[in-house]
C-alpha cells in the first residue's frame, strides 16, 4: 500500500511529500517528492543586484538564514574579487555559530515533537527566542535578517551586545543538560531511537550525505576544520562525532555541536571586544555600496566594466555542507547562482535509511535528518 505522507502532514515539517510503500507496518519502499516550495530563487537571483540576493537567502532556509547569507556572500565576494575586513569575518563567524545554535535548538524542538514529546518542544522554542533576540538586536529582524553585504556586514554590533550574548550563552548551557535529561535520560527515548535509520560512513559518502548525519556515522568531517573559512582556524573547538550512525547518534552529535558552538561564540565575543574596526570594505564598486544606482538592462548604464570571475564557497551549515557557485560576467547581476543544499542530498537517500523500519519510525528518522524544505526546493 502506498501512503502519501504529505504535503500536508505533521511529520513533514514543511511542504514535501514522502511516498512510502508499506507492508503492514513495515516500510518496503520510499520516494520523497519535492518541489512544493520551489520559488526559483536561483532564477530570481539572476535579475537582482548582488546585495539584493541576500534578501532571498533568508528565505532559502528559514531556520538558518544567516548561514545561507554568509554562504552566498562569500561566494559573491570571491566572484567579485573583494576583500572583507577582518572584523566582518569574525562577525560572520559569530553569526554563523549563533545561527547553528538557533537551528539545532529548533531541530531539537521539532524532533522531540516527532517522538511525542510536547514539553521540550516548547523549551526549545523558548530558548531559540533568546537567540532571535540577539539577532534582532544587531540585524533588526528576527528571522529575515538581510545583514550581510558584499564587502562585509551592514552595521557593527551595538553597544553592550557582547555582554548580552555572554549572558545568553551562560543561560543556555544548563538548558542543554535539561534537554539531555528529557531525552537521553528516558528509557523510552532509547527504545524509540536506538538502531533506527542506521547508515554507515561509506553509505553516507556514496549518497552525498553530509553534516551531523555523516558525523554520527563516525567520520569527523567538518568543513570548519577541514577547509577553514571565515576565521575558524583561529578558534578552538572539537568536531562532534558518534559511531553508531543511528537516530540517537545524530541526536548526540547535534547536542555536542550546540556546546561546541557556545564555545566558539565565546571566543568570537572575546575577539570582537578587543578589535574594533570597520565592518564594510571601502573599495566597493559603485553598485555594491548603498545607495544603488538606477540600472537598466545588464550593464547598460555602466561605462566601466568590472573584472568577471567565478566564486565558490562552501560552509558547514547547521544541516550539513552547503555550497554556492556564483558566476560574475561583469554586470550588476550575477549571471548564474547555484546552491548546493545539504538537506537536498540528505533527503535523496531517504530510501536507504527508511526501508525495513516501521511506519512509526518515519517521524524520528526523518526528524533526525533535520529537514528544511525551503533550502531543498529553493
Amino acid at each position, binding site marked *: 500500500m502506498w*501512503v502519501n505522507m504529505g504535503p500536508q502532514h505533521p511529520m513533514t515539517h514543511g511542504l514535501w511529500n514522502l511516498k512510502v510503500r508499506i507492508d503492514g*507496518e513495515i516500510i518496503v519502499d520510499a520516494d520523497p517528492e519535492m518541489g512544493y516550495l520551489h520559488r526559483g530563487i536561483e532564477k530570481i537571483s539572476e535579475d537582482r543586484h548582488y546585495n539584493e540576493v541576500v534578501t532571498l537567502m533568508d528565505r532559502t532556509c528559514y531556520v538558518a538564514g544567516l548561514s545561507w547569507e554568509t554562504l552566498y556572500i562569500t561566494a559573491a565576494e570571491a566572484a567579485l574579487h573583494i576583500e572583507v575586513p577582518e572584523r566582518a569575518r569574525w562577525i560572520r563567524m559569530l553569526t554563523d555559530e549563533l545561527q547553528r545554535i538557533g537551528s539545532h535548538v529548533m531541530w531539537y524542538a521539532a524532533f522531540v515533537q516527532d517522538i511525542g514529546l510536547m514539553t521540550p518542544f516548547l523549551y526549545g522554542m523558548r530558548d531559540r527566542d533568546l537567540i532571535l533576540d540577539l539577532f534582532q538586536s544587531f540585524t533588526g529582524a528576527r528571522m529575515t535578517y538581510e545583514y550581510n553585504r558584499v564587502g562585509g556586514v551592514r552595521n557593527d554590533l551595538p553597544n553592550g551586545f557582547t555582554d548580552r550574548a555572554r549572558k545568553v550563552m551562560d543561560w543556555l548551557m544548563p538548558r542543554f543538560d535539561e534537554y539531555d535529561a528529557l531525552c537521553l535520560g528516558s528509557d523510552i*527515548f532509547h527504545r*524509540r531511537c536506538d538502531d533506527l535509520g542506521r547508515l554507515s560512513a561509506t553509505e553516507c559518502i556514496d549518497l552525498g550525505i553530509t553534516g551531523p548525519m555523516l558525523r554520527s556515522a563516525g567520520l569527523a568531517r567538518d568543513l570548519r576544520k577541514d577547509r577553514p573559512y571565515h576565521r575558524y582556524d583561529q578558534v578552538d573547538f572539537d568536531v562532534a562525532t558518534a559511531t553508531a550512525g543511528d537516530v540517537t547518534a545524530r541526536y548526540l552529535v547535534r547536542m555536542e555541536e550546540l556546546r561546541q558552538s557556545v564555545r566558539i561564540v565565546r571566543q568570537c565575543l572575546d575577539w570582537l571586544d578587543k578589535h574594533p574596526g570597520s565592518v564594510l570594505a571601502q573599495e566597493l564598486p559603485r553598485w555594491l555600496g548603498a545607495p544603488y544606482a538606477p540600472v537598466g538592462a545588464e550593464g547598460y548604464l555602466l561605462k566601466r566594466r568590472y573584472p568577471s570571475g567565478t566564486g565558490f564557497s562552501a560552509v558547514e551549515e547547521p544541516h550539513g555542507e552547503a555550497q554556492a557557485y556564483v558566476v560574475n560576467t561583469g554586470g550588476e547581476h550575477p549571471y548564474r547562482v547555484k546552491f548546493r543544499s545539504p538537506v537536498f542530498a540528505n533527503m535523496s537517500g531517504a530510501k536507504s535509511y527508511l526501508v525495513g523500519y516501521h511506519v*512509526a519510525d518515519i517521524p524520528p528518522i526523518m526528524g533526525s535528518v533535520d529537514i528544511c524544505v525551503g533550502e531543498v526546493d529553493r
Partner: protein
Amino acid sequence: MATTLYSVSDAISSLLLGAVGSIFPEPVHGWLTSTDVVTGLAVLIFCAILLVASMINTIMLIWFERKLLGRFMDRRGAMHVGYAGLLQNFADGLKLFRKNTFMPREADRLGYFTGPTAYMVTSMILFGILPVSSGWNGGSLPLSLLLALAVFSFAPLFIFVSAWSSNNKYSLLGGMRSAAQMIAYEVPILLAVVAVVILAGSFDLNTIVLEQQNYWFWGPLVVALFVFFVGMLAEMERIPFDLPEAEAELVEGWNTEYGGMLFAFFMLADYVRALIGSLLVVLLFLGGWTMPSYVPTALTSFPLAGIFWFMLKTYAVFAIFVWIRASLPRVRTDQLLRIGWMRMIPLALLSIVLAGLVVLARCLPVFGCVPTLGG
C-alpha cells in the same frame, strides 16, 4: 440500596409534579402525582443531573489538563475566555457544535456516524455505574466493577468501526493499532482488578471502597496499582501510549476524517474515559471517598465531604497522568504490545499472588480475623 442521588431527584420530581399538578383539575392532578409518573420524571432528572455533572467535570478536566500541561511547558495554558481560561473549553465546544457535520464521499455512512456516537454513549454509561460517594451513585449493582470494565472495553470496537468506515489509510492504521492496543491491555487490567477483588472479596465498588476504610489497597497491592495505572494509560490512549492518534505519523489516527461535533464526541469521550480511569484508580486503590482515621474529623464530616475528597483524589491521579504526558515520548506499536503482553501480564499475575498472600496473612492470629472470600 436507594441512592442519595436518586432520592434527591425523586424529591425534585415530586415537588415539581406536585406544583404543576395543583393547577390542573382532579383526574390530571391524580395522574401527575401518581408514583409511576413521579418515578419516571425522577429517572429523567437523575439522568440529566448525571449528564450535566459528568460533562462539566469532563470539561473542567480538559481545562485542568491544559493548565497543568501549560505549566509543565513553561507557559500558561488557556488565558482569554473567562477567568484564567475557565470557559475556554466551553467556547471550543460551542465552536465545534456550530460546525458543519460532513462526511467524506467514499465513507460508509452507517459506521461513520454510529462509531463516534456509540463511543460517546458507552463511555457516558459508566457514570451511571460508578459511585461518587457513599450512596451517591446511579445503579448500585453487586457486580458493578465487572460491568464497568465490560462497558469500558467496548471502545476498541467502535473506534475500529469509525476508523474503517471513514475510508482513510491513516484512520485504518490508527484503528487497527487502537484495537490491538486496547485488547492487549484489557488483560493485565482485568488481572490487576482480580487482585483487588480477592482483597475486597466483592465485585461491588461500594463494598470495595468500604473495605478500604482501614487501609487503602495501594499499600499491599502496589504492583497491581502499577499494572492498572499503566494499563489505564494505554486504554485512555495517552502519551506514552497514544499511538492510535500519534499525530506525527498518522496525522490524527482514527479520527483523522472527523470534524465538527463528531470530532467533539471523540474528544469528549476520550476525556470521559480519562476521568473514569482516574475514578477507577481512586476507587480501587486509593480508598474512594474514605479518608484515613488520622485526618481530623472536621475535614471529613462537612456536607458532601465524601464527594469533595473523592474528586480531589481523582484530579490528583489525573495530574499524574498529565505529568507523565508532559515528560515522556511515545513508544512504538510493537514495543507497546510487547510491554503489554510480556511485562504487564506477568506483573499482574504476580499481584494476584501477592493479594492471595495478603489475604492469608490477614488470617494470622496476630490480626485476629478469619479468611473470607466474598463477604
